[in-house]
């Protein structure tokens, strides 16, 4: 199995104020899948994503990528793991304000020994004409496309998306989802996407619904549609 999640538990706080956010999550995600994590606020989806991303640690259970358990890794090994396997996309684009579009994407390319062709990627993202612009000269959608570019330029095995359309309007959101889908098809990355938006599940191969820190539904989407056809 490509990404294995086994009995993952995580809580925050201590004593009476302790909240168990993840109460034993177990699932496997195949290579090249688009997996959407759905659930209301506080269901634990972002926490799960952060643990998969190696930026948060589980209290018990483990996450393994191609059999390599993250819990056994040192801080340095975890950084190396993220560097090698992961690409991150956040709701806020977190671009470096004084680097232009191309340079922001190069920030991701630097981490890889074998990055994708930046010109081709800029074309794929529809940012080629904007490559010399600074983030503050771009629209929200363009900024998010740039952050996608930064995440996938190193051709990561897994693309982790935390509410990538959370700050965007309908049209721009669809635009961004199309890019993620396109990237997945073209480069074969596994995509794990956290979202509030129920409609997005329709473009996924796999839909995992979380509630109160537990998996309520884990379904394979047999009627997957393209992002172009999404509507909400």
């Amino acid at each position, binding site marked *: 199995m490509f990404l294995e999640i086994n009995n993952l538990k995580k809580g925050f706080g201590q004593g009476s104020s302790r909240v168990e956010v993840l109460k034993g999550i177990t699932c496997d995600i195949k290579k090249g899948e688009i997996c959407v994590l759905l659930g209301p606020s506080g269901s634990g989806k972002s926490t799960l994503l952060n643990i998969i991303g190696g930026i948060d640690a589980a209290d018990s259970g483990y996450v393994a990528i191609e059999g390599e358990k993250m819990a056994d890794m040192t801080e340095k090994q975890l950084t190396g793991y993220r560097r090698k396997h992961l690409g991150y996309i956040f709701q806020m684009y*977190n671009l470096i304000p004084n680097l232009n579009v191309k340079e922001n994407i190069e920030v991701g390319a630097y981490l890889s020994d074998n990055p994708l062709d930046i010109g081709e990627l800029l074309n794929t993202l529809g940012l080629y004409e904007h490559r010399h612009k600074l983030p503050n000269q771009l629209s929200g959608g363009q900024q998010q496309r740039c*952050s996608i570019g*930064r995440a996938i330029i190193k051709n990561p095995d897994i693309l982790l998306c935390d509410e990538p359309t959370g700050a965007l309007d309908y049209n721009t959101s669809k635009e961004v989802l199309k890019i993620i889908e396109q990237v997945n098809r073209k480069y074969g990355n596994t995509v794990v996407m956290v979202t509030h938006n129920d409609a997005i599940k329709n473009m996924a191969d796999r839909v995992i619904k979380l509630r109160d820190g537990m998996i309520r539904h884990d379904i394979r989407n047999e009627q997957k549609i393209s992002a172009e056809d999404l509507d909400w």
Partner: protein
Amino acid sequence: MRNPLMKRIPRELIGEFGKYIAIFLFMVATIGFISGFLVATQGLKIEYDNSFEKYNVEYGHFVLKKEATEKLTEKISNHGIKLYEQNYNDLDVTAKGEPHGIMRVFKPRDEVNKVDLLDGRMIESDDEIVADRLYLSNNDLEIGDVITMQGNDFKVVGIVALTDYSTLYKNNNEIMFDSVAFGAGIVSERAFDDFGKGNLNYSYAWLYDKVPEDKQAEKKDSDDLAYDISMDCLNEDNELTIFIPRYANKSINFAGEDIGKDRPMMLVLLYILIAIMAFVFAVTINHSVVKEANVIGTLRASGYTKREIFVHYMISPMLVTFIASIIGNILGYTVFEDIAKEMYRGSYGLTHYVSYFNMDAFVRTTVVPMIIMIVVTGIGLWRKLSYSPLNFIRRDIVKHRREKAVKLPKIGFFSRFRLRVIIQNIPNYVTLFFGILFSCLLLMFGMIMTPLLHTYSDNAVAYKPANYQYILSSKQEVDPEIAEKYCVTSLKMIDSFFNPEEMSIYGIMEDSRFYKNLELPKEGVVVTADFAEKYRVGVGDIINLREEYGTGLYAFEIKGIYETKSSLGIYMRQKYFCEVFEKMIDEHSDSMDMFGNALSKIMGERDESYYNGYLSDIDLRGKYLNEENIAAMITEDDLTSLARQMDVSMGDLFNMLYIFALVLFALLIFLLTKIILEKNITSISMTKILGYYDGEISRLYLLASVWVVIISSVLSMAINTALFHVILRIFMKGYGGWFELVIPLSLYFKIFIMMVLTYLVVAVFQFFRIKKIPMDEALKNVE
């Protein structure tokens, strides 16, 4: 692939040009000045050390009462030395119708104590003179000017350095040299002879046939020589009046000892200033890290290591420090070397200057600042970056985040708001406080010293016991109505902190009319208030002194403090003086010198009416006292020479410190208030949206800093006043004399006003920054 984050660096430097250029220029000036100082002092020291051999500097000289006969010369030469006649005349100088102190005039010197021609040419005719550079410059005299001595005119044709007068002490017993009132020069042999023998001093320099191996050997050889020469003189109907071996000659040694003495102080100054700049960088980097927390979090989540982020944020300060060090060093070897060199040349008559590359200075002004920068800035940054990527993404990277707001007293809204701004920016204000503390210290040092010197001079004149004090070389009776006898000798003070200082011990007559307020005990001594303050002694304490050239040790109990000002001295009754120093009746000679007294000890009984000086309010020379019986005369000029010389030689340094301090102060205020404004840019934007005027917003944010500046300034002055007492002690360690630290209230007021005015200038700049903050800033950053 080159790290793309590197591309941020030039943009960061350009984007924050004001901040970086201010720090950069300050560092360039600091490093440049210190580098120049270190390079110059090394060059001066090397040339000074080399001058002994190059110009064949004497191993000592002595002065006889009469010209040495051939027989005496031969006898003296048999003590393993070679003699060179170095006769001189001390002559009053007039130029351009004004008196210009005294010139010690020599014949041309070809064999020993050779001169270094710095400018112009050597003398070619009998109406020409070459003279010491420092004396000429201090008296605004230059090549082509005519000076008059003993009625003869001499045209200045050359500017020279006399290696045995690198420090212009007229008399080796003087506390401080005075290069304004005393100089040295050379005229032709014929012109010299024309001065006659009225003012002639029979001086002879010597070189050892066999150079002593070390300092101990040199001291022993010279002690033996002093005894031998005095005995030879007695046998040849002559008298040894002055004997100064080279190691004890302040005219030769003082400059060498002084050059580079300020080096530790300068290095400490450099390191403190760099550390302050590093703190400023640390604060700005911390601010950037907080501002860019989400970006850092994303980069860390993407796989950037902590080290890579650390290096990225460290590049700008390191780059600025490195380039500032290089440019500072270039300026150090060009502009500042000259400034530093001239500071010393403003005090000493030094030979030609040659610049040398100074590896030690280079390391201290490049590598050490880089290390300070890494340590001060790096430690804080490394710790800050220890937060997890998730903490960064959530912007949860402020330690001790307050759970609750600090409860404030019931005061007006504006005041509460300002207090909140202060609480929010405590780390910045702490840095600001230390910056103000240090710049205030420099400012005080720059502003206090000159008035301190003037106060010293004024007090020295106001509290002087008599207009004229004479020290006799031979006894001569003067009408008691006109002059009062006294005794004086000098001993070296033994103290664990201060360098051994020559101290005058006075034997004062009972019921002295010149020391009316001085109550002297039958035994024991009274010391001046300055003495008590300098050596931290009081009534009942014992002070220890030793003979300069002998082995005698003296311990005196302090029985009282003499409340006079600008004077270091030890007083005792004249009778007690005779007892302590065993002054004996000398039936054979009226001579007052040490050799005469030593002889009398063997031959006579105690002389209770001994005296070797006169106090008088009128000039006794000529009419009442033969010039030949006067060994030294102390006037107002002599009493104020210490302050005058320090003012001349260090006045520029004080002014530089003063300007430096104001720049540092303005820079810190500018940088830290800028950070405070940047931190609050969203809030400022929001208050604009709410309808506040720019003036009101400035009052909220800039007045908070005014409070801190005012409180810090007042606290700094109080702390620095205490610190200044310590600093003055260290500063005076190498100097004879003492300055009573009196800081007038007006000076505090002046410093305070200077600081507040500087702040106001910066505040005007910041006001325009506030005006420029757009209203959409608040809307852009909603997360």
